């Protein structure tokens, strides 16, 4: 079961995340569940495979907003990096960074 301590161990800035949720812990954890279950994570993978960088940017940008608000900092940092690469339409291999993002998401979902 996910909790504040586990999130802190992951590196989340739970103090800020909680503050944004008016310090309602249950609500914060509920939103984290909702954010992590976003199908955009999978859709992002599909767009990258199809080399649809524009679509990938939109999806990544959306995830950035959600994960940023949830203060899941390590995951947010990776998503930000990917967003900037996609914004610049950088022709690179996104496999590594996408895997990193998905692994972190899996780690959080497994809590």
């Amino acid at each position, binding site marked *: 079961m996910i909790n504040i301590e586990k999130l802190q161990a992951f590196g989340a800035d739970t103090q800020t995340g909680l503050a*944004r949720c008016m310090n309602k812990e249950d609500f914060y954890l509920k939103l984290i569940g*909702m954010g992590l279950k976003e199908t955009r994570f999978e859709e992002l993978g599909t767009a990258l495979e199809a080399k649809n960088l524009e679509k990938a940017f939109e999806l990544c940008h959306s995830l950035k907003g959600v994960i940023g*608000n949830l203060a899941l900092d390590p995951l947010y940092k990776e998503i930000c990096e990917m967003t900037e690469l996609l914004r610049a339409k950088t022709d690179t291999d996104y496999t590594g960074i996408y895997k990193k993002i998905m692994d972190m998401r899996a780690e959080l979902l497994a809590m």
Partner: protein
Amino acid sequence: MKSIKGLFDHTVLIVDDEITNREMLANILADEYKVIMASDGKEALEKIREYGSRLSLVLLDLLMPNMSGFDVLKELKEKGISSEIPVIVLTSEKSSEIESLHLGAADFLTKPYDLPEVILARVRHSIELFENARLIHATQYDKLTGFYNPKYFFEFASQFDERYPAEKMDALVINFTRFHLLNELNGQEFGDKVLNAMADGIRGVLIRNRGIAARRDSDVFYVYVTHLEDYGIFIDAMKTAFSPLLKGSEIRLRLGAYFDSDRSHTIKERFDHALQACNSIRNKGGNNGEEICIYDKEMIEKDKFDAHLLHDFEAALEQKQFKVNYQPKFNIKGDKPVLCSCEALIRWIHPELGFVRPDLFIPLFEENGLVTILDRYVWEESARQIRKWKEELGVTIPVSVNVSRVDLADPDMTNFITKIVKENGLSPKDYMLEVTESAYTDNQKHIIEVVKNLRSLGHKVEMDDFGSGYSSLNMLTSMPIDALKMDKAFIRNIKPGNKDMKLVELVLEIAKSLEVPVVAEGVETEDEYKMLKAAGCDIIQGYYFSKPIPPEEMEKFV
């Protein structure tokens, strides 16, 4: 700090395609606001349409599928909604801020979100700012024309004067003469169109010349503008704006101007002068192409003269400088004219100015209400005089006194007259009242009531200056009167069989059918007297028989 609830609930619309973001914001706002949500631009526009002015604020994400936040902003701007409802943009991109601002966004919230206190403060601030702006707009501007209300107009003009003391400025007052006729004949909607056309004409000139405008009292416009050599551009611009609505002959514009290069008068005084100049066009008759009048030396002199008279009024009363003279009225029905009554007329013998004509001081005292004091003085003097004649000459000479519209508005008027009639032991039928025709058109219902009451007490009421105003024939039947006093303008040019004489005969016919006698005023010659007698006129007043005379000279007519 939470703000007090106030009168209205505040509803905030959150627009974001991410449910997590929407929920997080809704949770922050829920304590203070009613929150509704939309997940894309299209849904947002539907909600904005549905809620209209009940919506206090929109929190808008920019990057959304289907319809972006930018497209929503564009739509709101086009429809003028973003000036009514504040929109705060939610963005993580600095670069989006300028574009959003151009599109009418009121503020920004960054992503990831700031602390709830910051968000709440910015939401509160935007709502308050817009509500205040709406309130100020409602009180600051005239709803119909979009011009300033007079209060704000004077405030801005004063501020302008302070900042630009050397700028040469004109105070203008523009008016549509007898505008109420347009409303009466064509309806208020049409009248409003005409007023808007006036405003458009003025606005057209102010686009090219620095200035501001206000609307006052329906059809009076104030304009404060950098000095112009030719004020005709305003008249021309308004005439052009009127062209789809009015024929040239229906346009009755007046413009009064005051130019004060050294700003020796306050802004209000300058507009008073401009108004005076504007009104002087009407007083001169107006419609003969005189549309512009500039406040000039003659008016300055008139102002000074008026101020002198006003200053001296009280002393004049105390020192009995006001004299009541009496102009006899003769009944000409029989073989010989017989004195039947007289009209009390005021004279002012001023110690410095000499004889001051009543037309110079009566309108002035009517303006500021002093006329009621003066009228009561005349009424009392007249009542005393009737008694005195009775005692000295052994006859009762009825007197008619003038009653102004200001007197008629005084609820104590009838009591006062009753009191003086009683004090002097008079019969009410010997104390007559002359009410000018134009007074009847002012507040007909009230005046008819007062007159009915006076008649029920036994007084006779004459309608003065009949034919000089705008009373309709229809109105005559509903007016309680005992005599018609035909205005002297009717008599001035009568010749046997000419149009003027036919008009006089018509008035006599009307009076006959109403069963009231006619008093012809201003009769000066024997010819006039004979023609009027032949036409069936009942009573004559004028220099032909006698000018107004001091009471002691009345004996010769008894």
